[in-house]
């Protein structure tokens, strides 16, 4: 995983609440055996019209949303399935951070493990960001702050270990493997108890 310390971008906004993983990446695109190339089907059924052309009503298709790497989404983003294809698709599409007032547990875990910064904000700053698409936002992962020119800094919480992994660009497998002795001891204890 690459280290993520700072993201600066204009925001794109999908204001709907409860944007589920099937909307992020419909199940029929899950018949892949790799992590790559899912970006073209990210938000597939929302983003394209029947004839395959871009749907002008999909907010991320608007010219001003092009190239934005910070997505501000309505409450409870990423609910639904455990498919890690959802963060893979978003990252491949070019999104590096998702901000909402609530993010579903499994999606959030999956996102952070892949370097997609998933940020939960209080409702007021979240509301402001929803109402201001195209805001010029800087996310500082180390300081855990979001700044927009002319506004007070917003602080956000991030699980300390996930933050550490983002900043150092390390993945969690390595950390788990350091516990092999403790794991063996645990298994030994289980065998004796049985």
């Amino acid at each position: 995983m690459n280290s993520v310390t700072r993201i600066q971008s204009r925001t794109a906004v999908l204001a709907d609440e409860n944007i589920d993983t099937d909307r992020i990446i419909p199940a029929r695109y899950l018949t892949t055996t790799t992590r790559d190339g899912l970006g073209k089907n990210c938000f597939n059924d929302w983003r394209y019209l029947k004839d395959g052309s871009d749907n002008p009503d999909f907010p991320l298709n608007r010219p001003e949303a092009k190239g934005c790497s910070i997505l501000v989404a309505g409450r409870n983003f990423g609910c639904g399935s455990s498919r890690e294809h959802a963060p893979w698709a978003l990252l491949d599409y070019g999104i590096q951070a998702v901000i909402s007032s609530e993010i579903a547990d499994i999606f959030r875990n999956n996102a952070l493990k892949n370097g997609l910064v998933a940020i939960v904000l209080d409702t007021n700053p979240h509301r402001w960001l929803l109402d201001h698409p195209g805001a010029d936002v800087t996310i500082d992962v180390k300081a855990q702050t979001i700044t927009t020119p002319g506004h007070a800094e917003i602080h956000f919480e991030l699980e300390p270990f996930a933050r550490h992994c983002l900043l150092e660009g390390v993945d969690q497998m390595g950390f788990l493997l350091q516990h092999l002795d403790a794991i063996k001891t645990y298994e030994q204890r289980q065998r004796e108890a049985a």
Partner: protein
Amino acid sequence: MTARTLFEKVWDAHVVAPETADTPAVLYIDLHLIHEVTSPQAFTELRARKLQLRRPDLTLATLDHAIPTLHPRPNGERPYATPQAKHQVTRLEANCEMFGVELLGWNSASRGIVHVIGPELGVTQPGKTIVCGDSHTSTHGAFGALAFGIGTTEVGHVMATQCLLQRKPRTFAITVDGKLAPGVSAKDLILYVISKIGVNGGTGHVFEYRGSAIEALSMEERMTVCNMSIEAGARAGMVAPDEKTFTWLKDRPRSPRGADWDAAVARWTALRTDPGAKFDREAHFDAADVRPTITYGTNPGMAIPLDAPVPAARSAAEARALKYMQLTAGKPLAGTPIDIVFIGSCTNSRLPDLRAAARVLAGRKVAKGVRMLVVPGSEQVRVQAEAEGLDKVFTDAGAEWRLSGCSMCIAMNGDMAPPGKLVVSTSNRNFEGRQGKGARTVLASPVTAAACAVAGSITDSRPYLAEEAVA
């Protein structure tokens, strides 16, 4: 010792390294279920890191998500929807071979939806930690296991270390007392609960379902309830094991035997929330308030009694949902013509679900123009249902009877609904496009779904059940 909840007892027993301010706990996993769709990238990761699978003996694989539910062609070929779907299956077969994982594949009489076969085989047991790259892993909590869905990176973690990094979730007691009315099922109950606490009501929490109405449920019904915990945002839902649990598990192919069984039951009996133990949150419901319930929108929390009018939209997202569903606020869903009925999925595809649907369908016909698909949850369920003649009831009524699998629950195997069609489904998700691009889903219980198939429109099953009682 301080009073602990059921969840805390199971959690505590699996901590390999406790959590600190800086690091999550290392949690031991007793059973890892895998399937073709969310595992290939994890196996690739293992190979890239030159790692072995730590405990193949605690890992069990099956085929369910992307596989065809139609019988093989005369030449023996399986009618896969796409070459990619077939490729996923051959990948899983090769990966299981290479890493020494038992695969309940095409040739196994135990194959089926991952959350149906775990309990059926008796590998799902009280007090275990169980994970799978599938969010409905919560189903196994019906047995007092701590069971939850994980992403593919975590699938790799469990493969390599048999452990996961986890922050301890909070606890949420959902108490349901009173009695469900006749014709009202566990599916109606859980849809009702989700509609009350919301699709995000359980985020960060593990549910414990308790109270006299939960105790009165059969094991299959408890599975239906726990299955949909994730639809309220909770990663897991649990029910304390009791005599019913033990009776259900006894003599299953992989349940403990003899002295081991007695020791297991003694251990399992202690798996209850201690008197005085505190939950972080609590909610109480009365089972008598639950009526036959269906969804009208595009998430499982948008659920109402079958005869109630569609509520007005309270947000832009709800307005969008009504538009997608082509429904008008203020009018009831009852009477709306339907196109497809799907009975299946890890929520409602076990034998009692099929029996209940068959009771409604016996001697009746699926309405003209309606397509009905009945997909058993496992090959075991299929064989038992066929032994009871349920398949005949379905096919005589004009329904399709299939091999087991996820089928139209996730619509990635070719079983899908065309755009705009209205599907009454016993599955768990009514998200936009879940059952096919543009398809509209109404979630319902097996009896409601069967009654809708006969009527050709959204209808209450109770008159059909009452007629049957008289006959």
